[in-house]
């Protein structure tokens, strides 16, 4: 009855490769579903696309409309020619009207009338072909440009370093790839071409009008055109502000909704419903008011232009009447000004307004397209802070001998997080970093993975300075598991396979068994194919961490860094994981950051990180003997373990 159209409403339907999965067909009218499916069956498989990706930035000219379009300048000229032709064809009609009235209807000549008809129809046929060809040609060109731009921007995003992503709001970055590219696409596909088209058509129209009558044309240009221009300009500037407000307010409505939805569990548990309902109503109300304001402006503009249209016709008729009395009182069809010309004039004057209003609109489009160009250029010109050298070499068969020499690092200049740190981790050893929150443990780990470059000093793996090696060979052999397990859209299997797309199901299950998440997966009705709904919100937080670990194990790293990666996992699972690590990483290197001393304690080397550096380092026994920070920690832990928990 009520079209609960094909709804994949409850989560499902999200299988497949990350992102490029099934369609969000929820709610497509059922009668349309077949045709949409048929269309999809036609879609070629683009699965074999392989794009060269390099971390090195290709040097080229800075991005601008000109450099972007330069390779296609002949095609652009071709489109312009097509556009000019279309415009000419459009204006044949009004001219033929004048001919029909003056040379056929008034003198009563059927032959001329028939000829006008034939020519007109002929021009229409040509117009169908020409504008069809134009739409195809320009449209395909535009789509090709967009495809290239998407790849170019995305590839550059991939090259940029981590600091860029923490610094920029994700939402803002998204718009680079979506609305900015779209604004540019509009500019290219309609804007630029239309701009030229409208200017051309304005010139043609004025030319024809002048050929009809100079005085009348002057009247049109001096009286009606300025009124229209002022009106349109007023409308553009006021409505632009109005729509800007509308856009901002709808963004607020949606972001309030978005945050309410993601935080709904908190809304419920903190009894915030009433507050939020009123708050949302206020935001929606503000949005409505902004809409009402633009409605006012549009209604006024819309009706006034109609009024100006009629008023212009009136003025033309009145002035035309006086001109006729003046120059052609006998209404001779061959006279210098005729009734036919007057009527054609009135039909053309309506056309005359079109380019005027369109041009002011195009100006806006041009501006937003240009703004998009500037933003995209800003992005494309941002150099990755971690650069791959042009003569970088691969680290082959990483053994995991890590050496840090006199390293200093600061996120913000003047606030060093690490100061003159030196450390050697021999291949095959495990090391744990302990120390208070904010001491710089994660930072050190990120430097070893070369997510950042040190301000001073260097990091070497197997004797290679990280600045000299290719990022791909480094990250291919060194895995980092952060505390927040990020799960991608897609199934559990997609997520696990992320680190090594060619892994077989057997290998995937093996990795799951290693971290002890296999029984959970066995319990799921869809097993490995279970979708990771909303970044895994229906899994317990420990389970999500275990998945992230399995993903890292599957990539078979030679150096593994666990940054509080098991903080929400129970001790038994954790010990199982470490056990696996021992064997898995035999002869290789592990760096473990943990607050749980029991975890930290098992490493071959323990480094206490505090006060911008390594405060103590040594094996567990050595540090306990040394009797300072670590020994205190251990003592606290020991008393808890033995004496506490007695009521």
């Amino acid at each position, binding site marked *: 009855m009520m079209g609960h159209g094909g709804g994949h409403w409850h989560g499902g339907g999200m299988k497949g490769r990350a992102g490029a999965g099934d369609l969000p067909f929820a709610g497509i009218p059922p009668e349309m579903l077949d045709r949409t499916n048929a269309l999809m069956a036609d879609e070629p498989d683009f699965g074999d696309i392989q794009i060269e990706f390099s971390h090195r930035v290709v040097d080229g000219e800075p991005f601008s409309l000109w450099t972007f379009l330069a390779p296609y300048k002949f095609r652009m000229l071709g489109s312009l020619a097509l556009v000019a032709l279309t415009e000419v064809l459009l204006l044949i009609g009004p001219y033929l009207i004048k001919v029909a009235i003056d040379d056929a209807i008034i003198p009563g000549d059927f032959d001329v009338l028939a000829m006008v008809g034939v020519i*007109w129809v002929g021009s229409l046929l040509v117009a169908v072909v020409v504008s069809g060809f134009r739409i195809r040609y320009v449209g395909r060109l535009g789509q090709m440009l967009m495809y290239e731009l998407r790849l170019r921007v995305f590839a550059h995003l*991939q090259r940029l370093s981590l600091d860029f992503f*923490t610094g920029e709001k994700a939402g803002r970055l998204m718009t680079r790839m979506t609305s900015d590219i779209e604004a540019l696409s509009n500019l290219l596909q309609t804007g630029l071409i239309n701009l030229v088209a409208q200017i051309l058509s304005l010139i043609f129209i004025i030319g024809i009008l002048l050929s009809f009558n100079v005085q009348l044309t002057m009247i049109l240009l001096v009286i009606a055109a300025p009124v229209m221009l002022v009106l349109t300009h007023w409308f553009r500037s006021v409505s632009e502000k109005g729509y800007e407000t509308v856009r901002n307010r709808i963004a607020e409505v949606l972001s309030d909704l978005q945050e309410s939805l993601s935080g709904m569990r908190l809304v419920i548990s903190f009894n915030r419903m009433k*507050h939020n309902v009123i708050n949302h109503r206020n935001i929606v109300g503000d949005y409505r008011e902004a809409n009402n304001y633009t409605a006012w402006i549009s209604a006024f503009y819309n009706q006034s232009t109609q009024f100006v249209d009629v008023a212009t016709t009136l003025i033309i008729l009145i002035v035309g009447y006086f001109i006729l009395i003046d120059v052609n009182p006998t209404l001779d069809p061959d006279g210098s000004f005729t*009734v036919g010309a007057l009527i054609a004039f009135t039909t053309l004057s309506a056309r005359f307004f079109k380019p005027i209003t369109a041009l002011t609109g195009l100006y806006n489009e041009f501006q937003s397209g240009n703004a998009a160009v500037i933003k995209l250029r800003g992005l494309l010109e941002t150099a990755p802070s971690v650069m791959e050298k042009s003569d970088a070499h691969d680290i082959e068969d990483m053994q995991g001998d890590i050496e840090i020499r006199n390293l200093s690092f600061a996120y913000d200049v003047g606030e060093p997080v690490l100061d003159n740190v030196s450390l050697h981790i021999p291949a095959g050893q495990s090391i744990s970093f302990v120390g208070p929150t904010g001491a710089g443990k994660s930072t050190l780990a990120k430097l070893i993975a070369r997510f950042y470059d040190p301000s001073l000093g260097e990091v070497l793996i197997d004797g290679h300075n990280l600045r000299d090696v290719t990022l791909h060979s480094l990250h291919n052999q060194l*895995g980092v598991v952060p505390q927040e397990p990020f799960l991608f859209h897609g199934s559990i299997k997609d997520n696990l396979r992320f680190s090594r797309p060619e892994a077989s199901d057997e290998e995937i299950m093996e990795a799951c068994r290693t971290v002890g998440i296999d029984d959970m997966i066995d319990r799921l009705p869809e097993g490995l194919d279970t979708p990771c709904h909303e970044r895994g919100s229906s899994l317990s937080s420990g389970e999500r961490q275990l998945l992230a670990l399995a993903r890292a194990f599957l990539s078979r790293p030679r150096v593994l860094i666990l940054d509080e990666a098991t903080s929400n996992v129970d001790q*038994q699972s954790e010990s199982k994981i470490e056990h696996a690590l021992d064997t898995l990483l035999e002869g290789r290197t592990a760096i473990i950051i943990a607050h749980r001393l029991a975890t930290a304690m098992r490493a071959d080397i323990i480094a206490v990180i505090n006060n911008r550096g390594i405060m103590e380092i040594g094996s567990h026994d050595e540090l306990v003997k040394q009797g300072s920070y670590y020994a205190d920690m251990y003592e606290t832990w020991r008393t808890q373990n033995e004496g506490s928990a007695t009521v």
Partner: protein
Amino acid sequence: MSTTISEVAPEILEHAADPGEYEPVSVERRYEDPRATIDRDRSKHWFKRLFPILWVNKWPFSIAIGGMVLSMLFGVAVPALIGKAIDALPAAVTDGESSTLFTFLGILVTLATLRLVIGFFAMYQMSRVSNQLEGDLRSVIYNHLVTLSFSFYDRIQTGQVISRANSDIRAIQMFLMMSPMMLTSVLSFTFAAAYMASVSVTLTLAAMISTPIVYLLSMKLRKLMFPLSWLTQARQADVAVIVDENINGQRIVKSFAQEGNQLNLLARAAKQLQWVQVRSVDISALYNPLIENITVLGQVLVWIYGGWLVIDGQIQLGALVAFNMYIMMLQMPFRFLGMLLQMEQRARASAGRIFEILDEEPEVRDRDDTITLTHPKGHLKFDNVRFGYKDEQILRGLTFEVNAGETVAIVGRTGSGKSTIVRLLSRFYEIGDGAISIDDVDIRDLATKSLHYHVGQVLDEPFLFSVSIRDNIAYGKPDATMEEIIVAATAAQAHDFIMQTEDGYDTVVGERGYTLSGGQRQRLGIARALLLNPPILVLDDATSAIDVTVEKAIHEALLRLMENRTTILIAHRLSTISLADRVILLDEGMAVATGTHRELMASVPRYREVLAQQNRQIGEPEPDDAEQMDDESDGEYRRRIAAIVRSTPKPDDFPGGGAR
């Protein structure tokens, strides 16, 4: 290190004096609530279900329609009058008989002015109604969403709800607002056709001849474009999802050197998008010029055939000019009809999707005669509780008690259901069987608001809103004073690091709070719960990213803030467990053992197992590994791991970087 606990003054954190304050509101209402909601009767037609929301606007709506009809009538008269004026023109020029001409022109000015005023008013009024409708629908949906339970939010995808609350509302709004236009266009068609027929029936037919062709062509075009525009949207969404994930998950992409693969993935999605868009371009290249030029063909017919009629003396030149202007009006209803039919389809589907949300019933609901919980002592009891999110039972007859004022730790393996217990205690889900009670009152008899007010929860992954730190802490008490906020933050050991951020308490926490470290976010989560100083407090692995010393300070502050608080701790770390008076071991969905840590260590092997290494002292002999690997012998385990190691790729196996 941190602010000393003596600065924490417990008396500052006041409790609600009466239950009315359990639901805090500190925002001024600026707009009235929506005056209607949808019809609850699911069997009704979609339009009837939405009707009440439209009906409350009946007066402005009718006035707008009246105005539109009037202004349409004036509009229809314009071409006829221009035609008359043109017919009066030759006489005026040749004979100086200009009064008829100017009479017509005078009427024209008057009509145009009237149309300007009335048309403006009607159009504006119509938009207002439409905006009102949109806003009301948004609020109705939001107001319903906040009543729904956790189970609903487990099922849905946020993105989908947002798109429903956006494009679906738009689709309905568009349809409802376009339908009156259909009315006026039919009316103007009738008037124009009547006028034209009075002049010449055959010419009218000639003028209309292209209309059905245009209609059929545009229907065909729409039919072809429909799946294309769906697919375009879907492909655009694919691109957006890939970009979004690569931005948010960039660290993972980099960690596993997947940049190249992700680029290929995007290239594929972008190619698919390009393909479907090129298809649309091709189709519109075929149809649009046809449709446009066939419309003009009607005009050609009018001029040629009409010209012939004029020469023949059957009609006048002015009438011909008027005809020319009416051609557009003749086509209006047909163009509209096609559009409207399609809009109706869309609106119907959209309404269906919106109803799907609005028809959701909250799983957890207050009973009719609820008891309001006030000043609970905090005696908690789970009695034979059974529960599962789906078919699978997570809790299978869980029974335990927590005495008022006691601190109890719940220990269990990952996924054993610890967090689930906490969610059930606040009645976020309805239990399958058994009973949960507070001070011997079944929580299902309590007003949920009062239950939520007294049970504070801190979750392991605290969700922070992208507002200031201050507003985040004050989430449950938006009218809290700065003093209260500082007390709560200090107790959570968060005050010091907050003061170190750029704007202190006014620092806006970024999206999902990722500008803060895990430990910092957890402390804000604790401060948020402490601000309400709840007599029953649950810390669900809430200190997992906080170091031991700070954790201890937090618990000391907790004690100072309230004596006799009932506290449930969920933890894996012994440092946390040691803060509890008693430990409950959760296994297989049941409380299998309870006692002090020491007792359990001594007598419950399973407890030692779950806490794994913690029962092993440095220097003591390593416990048998087999004991830890619950169901697998050690030898087997090692063999399996060894198999993985053997399958490690040889150095020249890995796909080379760019440098080769």
